[in-house]
């Protein structure tokens, strides 16, 4: 059993681990930049945000600065933001559905986003439009799922899951059809590559665009973390303890959907993070969402950053990150669930 003291300590270690990994990640890559220089470059750039360019003297080459600031910084930040979002969404969905097998794509946000991206690629859109289309379709899909579930009689949570499965399946069929009719010489590989998930296309201007919806969604998840404990006991118990279940659940589902759609539209389909990280965090920080939610933020960011480092450094050709998360996530998950003494 994880005590509160242990949970706090786990949060501290996760935070420190993320910080170290964040700094190390800048030095990883074919163009080597020593960690000390990384810190200096980042510090200088940070000071210059306020003091203006040229406020501090430079002891490194122009090329180093370009690599660190224009190439690695956006990608590292995006990995952290996407990992944080997917893990937080997974934790939220698992709590709301009081089901440890729920993952961020349970309401169809990922399938909808994939369809939106494939459609935009088919129509020859720019990369910004592809992202927007994915984001829009992700949100619309979950909106449809919620409408369908509202109209159906019976238990709302089961209806949501069933509607999610149904609409995911519809949009997957749509994506398959687009792949069938796409130009096999350029569009099809682009769609396939997008579906495998990658952070390689991240540019600095993407960061604020992704940050905004993610911050808007992550804040309620953090603030409502105690309510998530109550919701996870089940509808009637939460209500009798004074939770306005319909309202709290709606806010949590919308927030989790927002950050899932934002993540998928910038990074493509990255599976397993939203399932594995919450489980790992339960081992480290316990099931109490007061600690589990912030632990998921930190651990998700660190996990995806680590996987992305592997993805761009393991082989000469980059491995799509979606493949790696599955390759690392699935066996790890198997290890977690087969450990005897602990219940999930």
């Amino acid at each position, binding site marked *: *059993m994880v*005590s509160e003291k242990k949970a706090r300590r786990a949060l501290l270690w996760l935070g420190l681990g993320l910080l170290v990994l964040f700094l190390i990640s800048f030095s990883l890559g074919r163009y080597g930049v020593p960690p000390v220089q990384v810190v200096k470059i980042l510090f200088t750039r940070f000071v210059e945000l306020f003091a203006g360019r040229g406020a501090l003297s430079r002891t490194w080459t122009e090329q180093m600065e370009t690599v660190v600031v224009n190439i690695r910084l956006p990608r590292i930040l995006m990995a952290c933001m996407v990992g944080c979002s997917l893990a937080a969404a997974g934790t939220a969905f698992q*709590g709301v559905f*009081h*089901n*440890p097998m729920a993952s961020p794509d349970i309401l169809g946000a990922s399938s909808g986003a994939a369809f939106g991206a494939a459609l935009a690629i088919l129509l020859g859109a720019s990369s910004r439009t592809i992202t927007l289309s994915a984001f829009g379709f992700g949100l619309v899909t979950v909106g449809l799922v919620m409408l369908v579930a509202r109209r159906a009689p019976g238990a709302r949570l089961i209806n949501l899951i069933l509607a999610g499965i149904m609409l995911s399946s519809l949009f997957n069929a749509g994506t398959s059809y687009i792949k069938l009719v796409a130009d096999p010489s350029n569009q099809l590989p682009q769609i396939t590559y997008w579906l495998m998930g990658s952070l390689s296309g991240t540019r600095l201007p993407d960061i604020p665009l992704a940050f905004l919806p993610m911050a808007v969604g992550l804040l309620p998840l953090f*603030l*409502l*973390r*105690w*309510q998530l*404990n*109550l919701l*996870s*006991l089940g509808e*009637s*118990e939460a*209500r*009798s*303890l*004074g*939770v*306005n*279940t319909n309202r*709290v659940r709606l806010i949590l589902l919308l927030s989790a959907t927002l950050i899932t759609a934002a993540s998928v539209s910038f990074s493509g389909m990255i599976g397993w993070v939203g399932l594995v990280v919450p489980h790992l965090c*339960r081992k480290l920080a*316990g*099931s*109490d969402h*007061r600690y589990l939610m912030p632990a998921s933020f930190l651990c998700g960011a660190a996990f995806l950053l680590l996987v992305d480092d592997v993805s761009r450094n393991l082989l000469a050709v980059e491995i799509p990150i979606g493949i790696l998360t599955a390759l690392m996530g699935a066996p790890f998950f198997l290890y977690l669930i087969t450990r005897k003494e602990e*219940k*999930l």
Partner: protein
Amino acid sequence: MNLSIENLSFGYGARTVLHEVSFTAQTGELLAILGPNGVGKTTLFKCILGLTRRYTGTIRADDGDLAALSPRERAHRVAAIPQAHPLSFRYRVFDMVLMGTSHTLSPLAVPGERERAAARAAMARVHIEHLGDRPFDQLSGGEQQLVFIARALAQEAKLLLMDEPTSSLDYGNRLLVLQVARDLARSGYTVLLSTHDPQHALWFADRALALKEGRVLALGAPEAVVTSDLLSQLYGRRIDLVPTPQGTVLVPKEGD
């Protein structure tokens, strides 16, 4: 807290679950609710807890209509003590009890020192302070039931609804939970307790309410309600009542 229920009816389509049920429960009273499975005991509790709105009639607590309240305001007055049940996630016992204090907090807040003190006091009241750091799912059924009771006490609501709290417990734990329920009634709580065992009503209740097919069959002192005649109507079994110096004992009749 005085609970007063008037003409409460509830139905799913053509099926009537509760039909014009009326009764009151006074402060300091343990009211046992008897009846076979499917007679509407759980539905009655759901109506009082506001888990369903599809009933007609009124449910008042100290003159206020419970239907007019938000979940938060209702949690301030009514606490439910569910049957022991499995949870999806592993929570500490202390956190389970702490969840009882949630309705006193803003939805965006986490419990602070005041809430922790309330949870500790509630655990001390049913003597489970030593279980605080244990995982809830590893407790025995009786201990889990005591945790739910402590959670209801931390909720600081004066009306306690116990839906068959003893059904999954062994004999010793049944008696323990019933004794705790009676002690709480003595100290000023109003306790509604549904049970499958009419003997429980004779032993521990101040009054008993018998439900059959959604209607009130009998209401009054346990000795007046639990009769051989009523038991055969409720359960279709003939049972003898044997008076002893320590109270009446139920004995199934030979040949049945």
